[in-house]
């Protein structure tokens, strides 16, 4: 041996010439110029037609996200939508951007890995209540702690949709499901409270699928956040949880809008719903709202803009040149040199 690849005679064509690549790498580093140069339309963000049940809450979320991308003029090739497995996790297929439909519960490690060395991409994550709070619970806690820049949407329909009505961690106790025909035996997880409790969590908000303006405003606010924005979206699943959110839809008293200059713009919601001023930087107040289940709070519950960001750690050295790298590896080899 002594020479790499000497036992492999195989050679493949390189698609792009090295110069070409260098040029593009530069492009990547000054990516902020890009969006100014092109104007996108809604059609640029449409992927394969959605195959959700007709009145599924996921449709609205998809539309809000597409509109957001358009309004922010995010280049589709610089946008990545990552998901796990579930009805909700089909969302990336319906976007015209890059997408990563990963494994059940594992969207967040993938999204963090994408972010690790790519500050230039816009990253959105879609996950379900089973995906995020059951099989993905460990990753969820740790992704909140890594606090890498991305927007995470938990589509919480309080049930396992895709696999046909099994109890999820957020299924209310006593709900009859296919795995608990006599009623779910435990009280549901509160994803807001647990998210807030996690060290380094920096942005925790709540929306509902049937108020798209507020959802849109929340996504918009999340875009301005330097770290991980976690948004729990209460989502209707008319197929398996018929009417389970009707009370909140029909009775304006069951919803309370959180207002604050640092929070989410309430928009036209104030015409219908009561508001309450809330300082999202107060952990205690955030926790109080998070634990309040009737009325439910909408808006930004918790904000900590000074939380450490792990992407600042992972992105160190991203522009190191080949020459610098070569010098560094030579220096390392010298440390082990004997002759």
């Amino acid at each position, binding site marked *: *041996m*002594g*020479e*790499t*690849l000497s*036992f*492999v005679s*195989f050679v*493949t064509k*390189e*698609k*792009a010439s090295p110069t*070409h*690549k*260098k040029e*593009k790498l530069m492009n990547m580093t000054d990516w902020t110029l890009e969006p100014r140069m092109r104007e996108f339309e809604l059609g640029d963000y449409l*992927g*394969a037609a959605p195959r959700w049940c007709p009145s599924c809450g996921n449709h609205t979320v998809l539309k809000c996200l597409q509109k957001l991308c358009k309004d922010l003029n995010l*280049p589709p*090739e610089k946008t990545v939508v*990552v998901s796990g497995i579930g009805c909700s996790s089909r969302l*990336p*297929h319906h976007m015209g951007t*890059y*997408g*990563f*439909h*990963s*494994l059940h519960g*594992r969207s*967040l*490690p*993938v*999204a*963090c*890995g*994408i972010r*690790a*060395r790519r500050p230039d*991409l816009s990253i959105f994550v879609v996950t379900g209540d089973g995906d995020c709070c059951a099989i993905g619970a*460990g*990753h969820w*806690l*740790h992704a909140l702690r890594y606090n890498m820049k991305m927007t995470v949407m938990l589509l919480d329909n309080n049930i396992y949709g895709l696999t046909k009505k099994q109890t999820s961690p957020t299924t209310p106790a006593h709900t009859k499901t296919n795995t608990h025909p006599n009623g779910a035996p435990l009280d549901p997880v509160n994803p807001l409270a647990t998210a807030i409790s996690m060290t380094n969590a920096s942005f925790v908000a709540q929306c509902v699928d049937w108020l798209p303006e507020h959802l849109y405003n929340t996504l918009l606010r999340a875009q301005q956040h330097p770290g991980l924005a976690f948004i729990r979206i209460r989502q209707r699943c008319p197929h398996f949880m018929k009417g389970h959110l009707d009370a909140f839809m029909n009775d304006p008293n069951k919803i309370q809008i959180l207002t604050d200059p640092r929070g989410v713009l309430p928009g036209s919601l104030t015409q219908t719903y009561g508001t309450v001023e809330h300082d999202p930087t107060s952990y205690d107040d955030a926790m109080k709202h998070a634990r309040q289940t009737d009325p439910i709070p909408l808006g930004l519950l918790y904000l900590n803009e000074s939380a450490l960001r792990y992407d600042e750690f*992972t992105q*160190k*050295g991203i*522009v*190191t040149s*080949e020459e610098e*790298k*070569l010098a*560094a*590896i030579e220096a*390392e*080899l010298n440390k*082990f*040199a*004997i*002759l």
Partner: protein
Amino acid sequence: MQIHQHIIEFVSDAGEGAQTAGQCLGTVSAKMGNGIWTVEIIPAEVEPPRRSRAGASGNRVRIGSKKITNAGDQADLVVAFNEQVLYSRFDVGAMRDGTIILLDDKWASVDDENIRKEFADAVADFKNRKADIRFVPFESETKKHIKDPRHGKNIWALGLVCAIYDRDLKLAEIEITKKFAKKSQEIVDTNLKLLHAGYDWAMQNTDLRFSIPAEPSDVPKIVVNGNIALALGIMAAGIEVCSMYPITPATSISHYLAEAFPRMGCVVHQAEDEISAIGFAIGASFAGKTPVTITSGPGLALKNEFLALAIMAELPLVVVIVQRGGPSTGLPTRVEQGDLLSALYAQPGDAPKIVMAPSNHEECFHFIITARKLAETFRTPVIVLSDANLATGQQPIPRPNPKTTWFAPPIDQSDWDESVPPFDWDPQTGLSQRPIPGQKNGNYVVTGLAHDQNGRVAYESSINEHAMQARSRKLATLQHALKPPVIHGDPEGGDLLVIGWGSPRGAIEEAVDTLRAQGISVSSVTLKFLSPFEPNLKEIFSKFKHLLCVEINYSDPASFGDARRYSQLCTVLRAHTLCDIDCWSHVPGIPLTPKDIEAAILEHIDQKGIDKP
């Protein structure tokens, strides 16, 4: 006395520094131009109780005039600070008749009667077993120079051994200075004093003298253990992200990388678990940065679901597995080659991937560079199987000369040709180029669901068959590109071919050389690729009357009859070639020795009725 090679061991309680002494001896010898191979002796606990067999810590150093390729057979000289840790070396069969043992006799005169008795009993036992025991006052001599002899007798002992083996004290001084520089000048000075004191004591009090002449090398060399070699390979491959979760014996790769990687602008990500570690790596890969993830058996068991996704979604990825004793938690610090079948077959469904195994430190370095290139060219994960024997053993290897062509090129951000689908499987090779986020018009969705050329979810039978075949074809393509393996011994054939992979290579080849010198018609071959196999195996095998796999994993004895389970490579090769390959494999938790392999070959030849000369 001039000799060709010797095996020297240092054993102590954990914390007494026998490992340091051994490492220094190894490096000094390598610098003098000797061939060396070192093996760490590591207890399973951090600081196990003193004077306990399972708590032995230390180092074995094999020193030779020529290149040394393995840890060798039984020890020639052993330095032991107490008789209990020494026992552990008898337990694993590391002693032969006449092994010289330099043992501290302070235990004969301690207050604790039990200890005195244990010591006396043990010494009697060792003598019975024909050890050549010589008492050395390690502790009392060390005490003359330092208050706590537990943190000094190792260097005193090193001085002693340097005298016995005529080592260059200047070189030893350099190593000691390097080792303790971080602490304080005072500590450096004390240790230098201890080195000389040990040396002087030996010159005056013993006539043991061995010289192992060195053949000076004309190529520049480095001394590394296998894990460092892998780490350096990772850097030289231009890999930017190493995503891992700590696990013995793989972790030290990331310890070194965590320190050195930032100097190359690269990052080690310690994830919350192994699943997340590989998921993070796969995310980085999707984003254009082919990463490495590092683990051992139990971690591999957790990575399979994501590995299957990477195969299905055709995302390049390098996976380093440093094998340890299994199954389950097994023997975390000990060597085994038990993860081959799992590397090949652990993912439900059909999951073709590339699997390679370095057989020495040089390959540890270069295989990683190859692995990254293959991963990207073939758009698939590449598993690199190392083991605990390679991981912790030190060896001099030619110093590599890194080139920028070894690096991953900067990620392609040019516009993607809209007419090319994201899985544009070449009908001949199965290969395709992949779009990287940021490439305009390349937009596609990665999915683990069955999908067509456009990456769109597809349920049609024909699409599923087509995609499966495209992924599988990549292995056939690679096999055609590989060279047949090289025979060690006689490429024209003979009575017996020993077939191996990975770290046992050195010991196998040494055994083959010894027997060939006796006129026995035996050769050996080491497979570098386990998936796909290198070409022409059946043809090569057919030139030999008998075939024997030698590996460090479990196989049933032949007495199990029809139900017999063969060793792992043997199983796969039998299916692949239909040749009647036998196996001699064991799970002792320590490397196979050349002597044991020799004996196995001879026994095999006997059984098969082959004439010995």
